[in-house]
């Protein structure tokens, strides 16, 4: 294994610019790493070996020509969750129904990375259509957690998380609708950021729940996560929900803030997030981390977010409702798989979708169809949207009156065993109780590794900020990780 794969992306950039190694070396090293580990981890669905090496060659030319004026991601290998469309590269969202689908266009976030010189290594495995919390809902087999291969990496962006954790790439993109970046980051000891809703364009992100989805980066350092966000964030005219606010210079802000502590920052600690549902070891580690923040100058404030208990139900009404609508287009007519078992149009639809979708996807489509149907819309969907506004209010109030940032656990447990929760969907849903409210409120959230449990499995600390305050999250995360180092390369051996 080449030591190159242990580096952070910013170290890779430094090495490339100084001529210590070439982009070709770097990409080859990562492709070798993938070759050596993917069979076991199953984190990649597709490795784009040739185009990656070609990009790397181009990157070397760019670096020769432009030196340190080369775009930020020149020669940096990245992995892309298969939920994001990639031009000319099969994109199937880990579902049989999209097998063989080759998008004719790039997801904006992917496009922006490519514009900045990134080398795309391939598409990572995930829960089918981003529905899951363990990456066991993939039609192409589960992903294994590098920390303990009998355990899940979390989901739905399990592939991206495992990839970064194991050194297959320094940075990977995922999507987060109810926790699908933060929870797998927590379970794999990596850093995962879900930006403010609208901060990153959703154009090209296959839609699961349109009012909740966001694309975000995984990395092993806060700086790397900031690097990725820098490039992908910002207004996109192709996404009507994308926000026009200017994108701060996150890297500059981080550099400025380095080593300066967090004095004056008020950290809200919501009691509802530390209930009996949370594993005591997780609770202990997160509390210790929050204490460490105090050591950095933060002021701890006990707060209450009373509607927290309603968040899970609200999410599992709104999410599936929007999903049932967004997944209507998978009908076998224009693209993807079409069943051969039909003698009528109705049968074509029914067979294609029955054969093409996995169990969890079907479950959520059925729930979603139900809650939108005549006679039930008001009681479920409309009601859930109303409760959502209360959840938004809770956070608004806390941020305007009591604190600047909120700290909670990410996941109630550390990585659980494969098969442990698959027989009980509701139990699986509980994995996201700490992350879901943040999506409902459209706020930014980050998971940073903060410790290990007695089994040596990683625990994550979630920091939540007001809308568009990614800088605050990154600065706090950086200060915390500098203070409480975590071995992010433990599984890169």
């Amino acid at each position, binding site marked *: 294994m080449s030591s190159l794969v242990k580096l952070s992306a910013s170290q890779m950039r430094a090495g490339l610019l100084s001529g210590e190694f070439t982009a070709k070396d770097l990409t080859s090293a990562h492709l070798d790493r993938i070759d050596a580990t993917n069979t076991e981890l199953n984190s990649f669905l597709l490795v784009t070996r040739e185009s990656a090496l070609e990009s790397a060659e181009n990157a070397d030319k760019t670096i020769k020509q432009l030196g340190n004026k080369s775009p930020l991601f020149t020669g940096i290998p990245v992995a892309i969750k298969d939920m*994001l*469309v990639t031009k000319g590269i099969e*994109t199937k*969202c880990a579902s049989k129904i*999209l097998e063989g*689908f080759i*998008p*004719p*266009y790039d*997801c904006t976030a992917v496009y922006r990375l490519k514009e900045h010189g990134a080398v795309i290594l391939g598409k990572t495995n995930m829960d089918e259509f981003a529905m899951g919390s363990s990456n066991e809902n993939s039609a192409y087999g589960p992903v294994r957690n590098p920390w303990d291969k009998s355990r899940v990496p979390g989901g739905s962006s399990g592939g991206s998380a495992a990839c970064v954790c194991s050194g297959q790439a320094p940075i990977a993109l995922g999507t987060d609708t109810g926790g699908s970046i933060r929870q797998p980051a927590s379970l794999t000891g990596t850093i995962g950021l879900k930006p403010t809703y609208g901060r990153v364009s*959703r*154009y*090209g*992100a*296959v*839609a699961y*729940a*349109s*009012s909740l989805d966001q694309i975000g980066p995984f990395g092993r350092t806060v700086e790397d996560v900031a690097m990725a966000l820098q490039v992908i964030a910002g207004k996109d*005219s*192709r*996404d*009507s*929900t994308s926000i026009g606010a200017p994108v701060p210079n996150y890297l500059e802000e981080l550099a400025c803030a380095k080593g300066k502590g967090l004095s004056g920052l008020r950290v809200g600690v919501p009691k509802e997030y530390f209930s009996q549902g949370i594993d005591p070891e997780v609770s202990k580690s997160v509390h210790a981390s929050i204490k460490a923040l105090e050591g950095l100058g933060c002021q701890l404030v006990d707060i209450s977010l009373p509607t927290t208990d309603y968040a899970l139900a609200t999410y599992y009404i709104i999410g599936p*409702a*929007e999903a049932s*609508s967004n997944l*209507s*287009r998978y*009908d076998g*007519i*224009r*693209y993807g798989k079409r069943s051969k078992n039909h003698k009528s*149009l109705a049968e074509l*639809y029914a067979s294609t979708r029955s054969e093409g979708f996995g169990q969890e996807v079907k479950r959520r489509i059925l729930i979603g*169809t139900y809650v*939108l*149907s*005549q006679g039930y*819309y008001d009681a479920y*969907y409309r009601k859930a949207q109303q409760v959502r506004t209360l959840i938004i209010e809770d956070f608004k109030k806390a941020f305007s009156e009591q604190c600047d940032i909120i700290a909670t656990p990410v996941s109630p447990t550390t990585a659980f065993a494969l098969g442990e929760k698959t027989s009980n969907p509701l139990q699986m849903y509980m994995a996201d109780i700490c992350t879901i409210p943040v999506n409902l409120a459209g706020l930014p959230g980050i998971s940073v590794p903060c410790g290990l449990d007695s089994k040596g499995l990683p625990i994550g600390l979630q920091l939540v900020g007001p809308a568009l305050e990614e800088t605050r999250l990154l600065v706090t995360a950086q200060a915390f990780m500098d203070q409480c180092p975590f071995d992010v390369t433990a599984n890169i051996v």
Partner: protein
Amino acid sequence: MDNFEAVIGLEVHAQLATDSKIFATSSTQSGNLPNTQTDPVTLGLPGCLPVLNKRVVDFAIKLGVATNCKIRHESVFARKHYFYPDLPKGYQISQYDKPLCEDGYLEIRSDTGMKRICITRIHLEEDAGKNTHLDHEPYSVVDLNRAGVPLVEIVSEPDLRSAQEAAAYMKLLRQTVRYLDICDGNMDEGSLRCDANVSVRLRGAEKLGTKVEIKNLNSFKFVERAIEYEIARQSALLANGEAVVQETRLWDESKGATRSMRGKEEAADYRYFPDPDLLPLVVDEAWIERIQSTLPELPGQAFDRFRSNYGLSPDQCELLTEEKLTAHYFDQAASVHNNPQGIANWITSELFGRLNRDGMAMSRCPISPQNLANLVKLIDDEVISGKIAKAIFEEMFSSSTSPASIVEKRGLRQITDSNQISTIIKRVLDENPAQVIAFREGKTKMMGFFVGQIMKETGGKANPQLVNELLTKELA
């Protein structure tokens, strides 16, 4: 059947003539090869998102203002779900709870005077593609060129009481969208479509009867015939003590009847909910005022103005203001020469006739309004006769030149010199003694012969009234 009253409402869909689609960048042009006007959004590809075309909203507001609607400050796009191959996303983006325009009206001309037909709502939505079932083939084909073309749906209150009123309302709607330049109103091409809701009740009853929806009405004739048929059908059922079934029926022109659409027993549940990919559409007063200021004179206003300013008959006003282009043409002609009646006659009989003969649209008319006006002026000034004018008209049509130049070039000035005419009359009578004798013996038809000869001699240029006057005097 007289004790029954028909209650009719129309749902009209109009394609808005913007360059690109309502939520996608592809062109809205028609008539191209299948599936060549598509893009990721039109195809409903995974990951694509709709973006609202502002010009579409401009057009819709224009229609709302022209039909006296209240324009909603904040309207919402909703998803309407159903599965069909011509609907790429499995849902249509439309408007449900909060449409863009509400509570408007149009006034139609009926035999009892102006009648107000209220418009419940006008909302924006996207068109679907086109499914074609192929005979003798085990498959159907889908063309998505039309998918995403912007539509406005105009829903009327059930204020119409007859098939004729329905046709009149349709015609006025078509005229209005054409005047506004927002839709070409071609029913046979599908840019204007009509569904009718027809019910029947005892005259004087307050409660509405069961309504039947009729689809596939793609001409004014069909609208009128289908509604008439349906009214008769429902009245007959009720008169017979039977109930009208709530259903959707299709107009079958070949049979001259409506027939039930199979398999539509239950109302579909479209599971409407606000589209999370689109922000609510905010229309402020300034936007509405901007559109208001661009509004052209509307058909009803043009009609009234023609009546009062030009004093033309209602029929003539209707003909001349049917198209905005024609009205404008007339205005220009009338401003050159003050004989609105004369100009009106020439346009409605000669010009329209000639254009029709060549299948030419008014927009391609080779005779400028100024030249037409000048032609009428030449007649009014007695420079040329009406008959000669017709020949000049024909030449103007083929060469697009001015009447004055044609008169000069061909020497077509009317002969109005009494001495000149008298001389010719005397010569003709001298040369035709037999006919003169015949005339004096009572064959008064000889007048026509003499006039014919005189016209031949003068190349048709002699003033006919003068010829008649002088000839009569000579033969007396």
